[in-house]
């Protein structure tokens, strides 16, 4: 059974003009979305608009402005190595002071809850038992690992590029 969860997904529909052609552009806003039961349900690659909009919503809890979306999108189009540019985009977003990240103290106060909430937030699914154990172990053994580093790792992982 799929559980309801507040996250992001496709909504508004925009028509933008680029050069001589009109192209459809979608903005992904904060809305209710069903959780995945496992990562295997993710079979589709996010488009560049989806990747940027979703990452923005995940980090700031609001929808990206059209100007920023365009700027990020142009940067992605302008580099052949998409993974490298996606990495740069995540690094630029996650380093902003307005990024909503749990403090290190809060994370270490209740690691299992942090792991579950972080998986729900970024992967839109609950971690499986192995992931729960491994991530908890990893955080406990590496005292210098911060929530920012974990979020960055998740947002640049393979799973984050799919839905």
């Amino acid at each position, binding site marked *: 059974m799929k559980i309801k969860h507040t996250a992001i997904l496709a909504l508004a529909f925009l028509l933008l003009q680029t050069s001589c052609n009109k192209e459809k552009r979608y903005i992904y806003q904060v809305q209710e979305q069903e959780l995945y039961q496992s990562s295997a349900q993710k079979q589709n690659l996010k488009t560049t608009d989806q990747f940027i909009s979703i990452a923005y919503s995940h980090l700031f809890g609001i929808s990206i402005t059209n100007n920023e979306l365009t700027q*990020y999108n142009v940067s992605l189009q*302008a*580099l*052949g*190595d998409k993974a490298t540019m996606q990495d740069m985009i995540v690094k630029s977003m996650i*380093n*902003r002071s307005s990024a909503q990240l749990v403090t290190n103290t809060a994370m270490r106060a209740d690691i299992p809850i942090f792991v579950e909430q972080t998986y729900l937030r970024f992967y839109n699914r609950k971690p*499986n038992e192995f992931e729960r154990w491994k991530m908890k172990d990893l955080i406990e053994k590496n005292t210098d690992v911060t929530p920012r580093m974990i979020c960055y*790792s998740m947002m640049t992982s393979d799973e984050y590029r799919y839905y």
Partner: protein
Amino acid sequence: MKRKQFIKNAALTAAGGIVMPYILPSGRLFAATGSRRANHVVFCLFAGGVRNLESIHKAEGNMMRNTLNGTEAISADIAPGIVQLPTIASTPLQNNGTLFKEFRYASGPTGHYNGHTTAITGKYSDEAIQLKQPPKYPTIFEYYRKHTSPSTSALNAWWVSNALGPYPYLNFSMFDGYGPAYGANMIQPDSIFNPSSASVLGSPLTLSQTEKSKCDMMRDFMNGQFKIPQAAVSSGIVNSAVDAEHLQTWLNSMIYQVTNGNIQDPWGTGIMTGDMKNIYFGIEVMKEFKPELMVINMTDIDIAHFDFTKYVSAIGMADYALYKLWQAIQSTPGMANDTVLVVVPEHGRNQAANSVVDAYGRYALDHNNDQMSREIFCLMAGKGVKQGQVISQTQGESVDVVPTIANILGFDNEIPFGILDGRVLTEAFT
């Protein structure tokens, strides 16, 4: 008996199947190695649609004083509208190589993307060309990366485009057996290295080596838990982890320079057109990565649709940028004296003008497949190229550039027979 014969025949067929692919068009069994004429090629598409009339035939004066011999004065009526940058070449570029004055874009629509695709794939295209997907036939980058060593690093091959739209697609094709695994790194510098982009990409998260290792460790674990769906594999050029790190470090350093206003007028000309910016950043790519193969383009000349005088002016500015590129090649360790520069417009423009008149009473020019729009030039300069040679008769075509580059880099014999339409421009070589 029949069974024995069958087994013998089957064995012979199998052996033939293994051997045949290695018999090359030249008739040799294996490709010659170490037969490079030079270790680097920079291919500059002097694009946007330039007529031979205003370029090498100097109908409005010598607008390419850094490239072509001669001091013909600019036509008096348009001279006030021409941006005249200083001549920086002590000897024009043509003296460092061979100039094909009557090169041809012989077939296919005279569209900018068609022309670019032809130049980069060595195949003429038609009206059915797709603007939102990679080309049908392999690009020179894929031939290079698949058929020559070192084939492993995508940082050895670059496509530096001065426009988005369909142009980013030209770094690899959809051709079976080639594709993104052999593609080039593509960059459209002006969309990344500008203040707006710097405002969203600047101030990135920086990680110490230890932090990076721990992030890599966590990501490796996460990736191990996810199976990438084969039906939706991300298509695109992929750099190795080390190369991606190198690329990102360089991009960040360039963005940092843009943020700090260090790249506003780097050549001190008081003007930086789109073409000049693209060449400037292409030079930065060259200095950083010393690619064995780089293709770069200019397109400002296309203003000719609306303003003839600005078109002529743009030729002059493109010429200036081109010589800057040549200077940079000659001053980049590892590339100096070991590079061939190839310069070709993607197509020309119509003989007949359109109805748009500029401030100097000159009519603008389109490009609609007439004979003049197929007349272009080709300049090859650098190591192993005949110096000061001018070929004035009609000779050479756009589709010859790819096999010629392949020959310079020593892998033309390894390209599967029958794909390419052109020939090696051997008459340009010493």
